């Protein structure tokens, strides 16, 4: 969606009438009604629009906790919606990993380690055999 942006009116003041006479004003009324449905009053909508026109961004002047929460919430929802389907696919494809496998992985030792520990254990057993000979 997204309507084609036409040339912005050069009028400094644009009055809003109950009965709009052009498509642009009609669109504005629709946007206002939608935003009011989302919890914003007319003053907030107007202030946002004027500041935005002046180069400010919503994050800069959204100073109430409610507005911040709503903005953050919408962003989080957007991210979750976009990636949740990918995540579920990934989880389905991931191999099963249980405790037995975990222990097997931890206990795998290299040939080097095995060789060294064999020598160490022989050394330990020779200390016991020296005692037995007494």
């Amino acid at each position, binding site marked *: 969606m997204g309507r084609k942006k036409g040339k912005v009116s050069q009028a400094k003041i644009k009055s809003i009438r109950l009965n709009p006479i052009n498509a642009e004003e009609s669109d504005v009324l629709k946007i206002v009604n939608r935003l009011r449905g989302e919890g914003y009053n007319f003053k907030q909508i107007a202030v946002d629009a004027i500041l935005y026109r002046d180069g400010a961004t919503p994050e800069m002047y959204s100073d109430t906790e409610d507005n911040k929460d709503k903005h953050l919430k919408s962003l989080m929802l957007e991210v979750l919606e976009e990636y949740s389907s990918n995540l579920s696919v990934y989880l389905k494809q991931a191999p099963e990993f249980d405790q037995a496998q975990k*222990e097997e992985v*931890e*206990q795998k*030792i*290299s*040939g*080097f*380690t095995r*060789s*060294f*520990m064999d*020598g*160490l254990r*022989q*050394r*330990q057993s*020779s*200390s*016991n055999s*020296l*005692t037995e000979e007494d």
Partner: protein
Amino acid sequence: MRLILDAGNALVKWYAPRSGIGPKSCLHALAELSDYQWENVIGRIGTPPNGYMKVNGTPYVIGRAAKEYQTLDKPKGAARYNKAYYGVISAYCMAQAYGKKIDAPISVNLFASYAPQDIQYAPELTKAAQRTWKIECEYGKMEFDVKDVVTVDEPLCGYAHYVFTETGSERVTNPFKEKTILVLDVGGYTTDKARVYPNGEIDLLSVDSRRIGTNEVLASFEKKLRVKHSKIFQDTGDLDIERVEKAIVSGVYRAGNQELDCQDIAQRSIKNLVHDVIQVIKSAGGIANYDAILLTGGGSALIYNELKASLDSIDFILAEDNISMMKYANVLGLSKLASILSRKE
């Protein structure tokens, strides 16, 4: 609790890896106290200061504080492997490693290192430590039940520190994997060696000890220093061992606010030990039979620079990168071996 212990002849080192305590050390000195001496120390406070403790009802003092009570030469090597000496020292280390009052007995798995020449006494070391220890110290009353004792040769602990990770896995880039290494552990009383071939194969016949160590170096250094600066040391008692070691390495002895140049004295003091260690290398086959020499133990840190200067045709590698931590290389290595040995077969 897992306790790693290296009761060297100069310093006692311990480490409790799972508790995050250590590695720490104390001077190797122990004296049994009379009840009268104990009461004098405890006085009205009621809490023993650090180093003072009762072990199974008998009062002892351990570490620096013990120096003023020692009247006889302390036993060395395997002569210490009895419950009244090695056992008490291990109990002290358990108390320090736990560090707080205990309401119920704590089970301990002890991993202890020894010099290769003491291998036939390893079972005595085990018996000395494997019992219940009831302790009264600065942390209050504690009870430890030593269930298992595992003993390992010290040079092998130093090698393990260099090639294994903390969890006991081989280092991903193990620099010794394909090399023949001579391990030298220069301690206070002995210099121990072991040859390890590529793939970690230990030459079991090469693991042994020589009666050469840093104790004589420290004594010689202190004597020469006192002669050169007799006025400064006139009223000084025994010098702190760690201060002396620092002076030997740095060439400067800090006495109060004075810095005494002692580079020449240090070099002359360690010259004999360096010569003796080179003889150990020669008797092990000489540098032509090795890819590198791994140094472990605190004594190696003292002679490292002189050794490199004397034998520049082979690489001398320190088991611990931080030279001030070299005295802990063996306990750190034994901790890694403990991880491997503790895995289920």
